[in-house]
């Protein structure tokens, strides 16, 4: 066989009940290249990678895998690691009670593979000195900026992602698979991730990189393979990259404009917060968010901008009743309302989609329809009885509108692809028929075609007079979608921008504003 490729997947076919997830898919990875893999939600990317990685063991699918010219049959993730395939899954899973070094070497705390063969230490204890040393070297070699002794609970999402990558690298893989590593990263974290990937590539490791962000494909990858409905559509070399063509291949049609225009008029103010302040849960005398005020009008889309950690999600959680307010008022239709629980919020017509899909996601033992209707059981019941025949009818329109890709409404959400789970979360929020809807990173992990649909949905909602608050770390998206932007920094409002003023430079200026002097003054005033 050709030695040009380090890894080849030949005619892989994988069936799930009612779903043909991969239909004779072929994937080739060259030595020392970054291969992009893109496709719509549910196109079969994660499924393919899970076979390479042995999560779906050899024998549960058709086709063959060839690593460096010899066929391999990975039977488990551990087996795949031994053969030289490293895998970082779509959702991070770090061990929260351990340090960085322990996380990286958890399966190999005695560092056996690093020792000379036949001289295994019989010592049953972990040699922490050596462990930290090995970890420091690993992190340095790969240009990953982490402290081996750091407590994992205190790491940011971006750092956790790096940790996951370091864990995969500790096994010295020939091919490293990264399934949507950038979905929850801030721009600067993405940059350092790219550095790590480029460094790996220089040292001859091949990388499969899955993403929904085209810019990342254009910037980082050497070739890109596009999947649609479980089939290979095309593969392009860097020189042939053409955004429009890639999108068309992905979604199977031409997309004229990613961001649809919205021309409905902005109406009366319906929602306002004044002086919202939330205390820091762990640090005394420090506010997580401080005196945040803004308002939203009917039919308006308000974008909350700012860097990761600026307190945008906290503002939303506070409004939604998930964090106790220290002070501040919330007004709906000019009347003050009190929100202590999410139930209060929903009753007042406020709904929210959280950015943390894993934590606040879905009831994985339930099917799609139940997960959707649970947010508004009143709509499907008579007195206090749930009418089961109504559940389907209630969930169906959302299932159709959001184009959730699944065999039926009775499909268990655990079997959905990541992006389709996100759509179910959005459907659940819409099911409360909210007047004010808060969307925290609504397009996280969602493919271009579906993004476009979600934008259209936002426009439809605003046309019906709903007020929409959106948070996004995708700046072009935020700029295109919002009528007005409130930029936050360090838990405070740094400024407000009208649509015509919302330019990236201006936003970044506001987002990086610091309030150190104000803080000092306030503390002095308090003393």
């Amino acid at each position, binding site marked *: 066989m050709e030695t040009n490729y380090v890894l080849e997947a030949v005619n892989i076919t994988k069936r799930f009940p009612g779903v043909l997830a991969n239909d004779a898919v072929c994937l080739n990875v060259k030595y020392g290249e970054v291969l992009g893999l893109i496709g719509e939600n549910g196109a079969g990317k994660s499924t393919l990678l899970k076979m390479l990685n042995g999560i779906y063991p050899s024998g549960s699918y058709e086709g063959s895998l060839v690593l460096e010219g010899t066929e391999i049959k990975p039977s488990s993730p551990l087996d795949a690691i031994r053969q030289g395939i490293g895998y970082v899954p779509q959702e991070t899973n770090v061990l929260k009670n351990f340090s960085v070094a322990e996380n990286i070497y958890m399966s190999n705390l005695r560092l056996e593979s690093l020792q000379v063969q036949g001289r295994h230490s019989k010592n049953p204890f972990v040699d922490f000195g050596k462990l930290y040393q090995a970890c420091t070297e690993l992190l340095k070699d790969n240009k990953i900026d982490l402290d081996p002794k750091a407590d994992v609970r205190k790491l940011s999402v971006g750092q956790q992602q790096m940790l996951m990558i370091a864990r995969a690298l500790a096994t010295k893989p020939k091919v490293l698979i990264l399934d949507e590593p950038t979905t929850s990263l801030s721009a600067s974290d993405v940059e350092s991730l790219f550095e790590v990937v480029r460094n790996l590539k220089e040292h001859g490791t091949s990388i499969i990189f899955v993403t929904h962000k085209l810019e990342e494909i254009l910037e980082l990858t050497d070739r890109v393979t596009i999947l649609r409905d479980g089939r290979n559509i095309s593969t392009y070399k860097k020189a042939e990259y053409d955004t429009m063509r890639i999108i068309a291949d992905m979604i199977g049609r031409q997309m004229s404009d990613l961001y649809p225009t919205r021309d409905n008029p902005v109406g009366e103010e319906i929602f306002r917060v004044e002086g919202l302040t939330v205390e820091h849960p762990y640090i005394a005398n420090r506010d997580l968010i401080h005196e945040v005020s803004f308002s939203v009008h009917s039919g308006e889309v308000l974008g909350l901008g700012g860097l990761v950690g600026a307190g945008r999600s906290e503002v939303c959680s506070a409004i939604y009743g998930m964090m106790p307010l220290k002070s501040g008022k919330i007004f709906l239709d000019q009347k003050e309302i009190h929100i202590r629980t999410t139930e209060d919020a929903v009753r007042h017509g406020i709904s929210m989609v959280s950015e943390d899909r894993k934590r606040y996601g*879905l009831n994985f033992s339930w099917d799609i329809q139940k997960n959707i209707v649970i947010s508004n059981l009143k709509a499907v019941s008579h007195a206090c*009885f749930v009418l089961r025949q109504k559940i389907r009818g209630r969930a169906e329109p959302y299932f159709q509108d959001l184009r959730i890709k699944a065999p039926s409404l009775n499909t268990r959400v655990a079997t959905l692809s990541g992006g389709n789970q996100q759509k179910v979360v959005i459907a*659940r929020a819409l099911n409360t028929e909210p007047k004010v809807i808060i969307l925290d990173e609504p397009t996280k992990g969602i493919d271009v075609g579906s993004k476009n649909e979600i934008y259209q949905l936002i426009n439809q909602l605003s046309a019906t007079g709903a007020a929409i608050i959106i948070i996004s770390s995708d700046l072009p998206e935020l700029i295109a979608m919002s009528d007005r932007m409130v930029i936050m920094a360090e838990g405070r409002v740094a400024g407000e921008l009208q649509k015509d003023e919302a330019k990236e430079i201006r936003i970044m200026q506001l987002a990086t504003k610091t309030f150190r002097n104000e803080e000092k003054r306030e503390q002095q005033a308090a003393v």
Partner: protein
Amino acid sequence: MMRLKERNERSGLGLKLLLTPEFGILIPILIVCVITTILKPNFLTWKYISSILVGSVFIGAATMGESLVIMAGEIDLSVGMNGCLAGVMCGIAASQWGLGLVPCVLICLLTGAVVGALNGVCVCYLGLSSWITTLATQFICQGLAVTISQGEPQSIASLGLSSVTRAKPLGLSWLFFVFVLLIVLLDVLIRRTRYGYSLRSVGGNQEASVMAGLNARRIKLIAFILAGTFAAVGGLFDTLNAGAANAAFGSGREFRAIICCAIGGISMTGGAGSAFGIALGVLLFHTLWYCLRILDVNTNLQLVLIGLILVLSVIMDIQRKRLEARKLV
């Protein structure tokens, strides 16, 4: 993997039946009955069967309450002693305060509900662990029951129920019919009502449910209150059956109730279960216990066998889940 797939296709219906959690329980019940019949040929007579059916209502009531708390993702270790205290309160109300039937029953149920509410407030609003909280209330209830009754049985003869308790419609005690009615109500509660959906949702994924606008704290609190009330029903059954309340009733019942839940297919991590399963779980547990007794098995050996059955039932449950998961792969 391949082999499993083939098997899957061949025995489609059989597998499907096996995969329903309730059906799985019927098999061991049958096995126990068959073995007992072989060893004691007159076992399959109405005398024994009715005795098993009636005898299962006491743990049965406690199990119903326990199942709700477990479905909410918590645990209640106080159902035994809570029921005991409630029974004693009923007895005191009858023998010492001279109250009539209705107030006595209400006092009994109210006692259970209050203890349940106490558990619920500690767990849901003060953030204590349900293990610790309900272990503590277990002690409190036990202590109170002995103190209040002064260790004496409290007769309920003044209620004039002796003829009623002795009546045997269809050859069964009427307590059994109350139990069946409660099971049906519980089934409606779990599967049909808004509360049932919310409860299973919170047990399945609490944070997601909160995000969907459910008030998880209140939902769990209600589960604890209901558990306390059902525990009191158990205590009431004891008292009515014996004609007197006794602080010695109900000891160890919480663990038996948890076992019945496990056997009955209530997911120990919360979120799933059915009243039908509970009824069968209770029936299996009680049949086993009863058969061991009439076969004169040594009491210590009884414990060993019951322990083994528990482990087996949990293994079966895991196996069943695995099969279910395989079906998805």
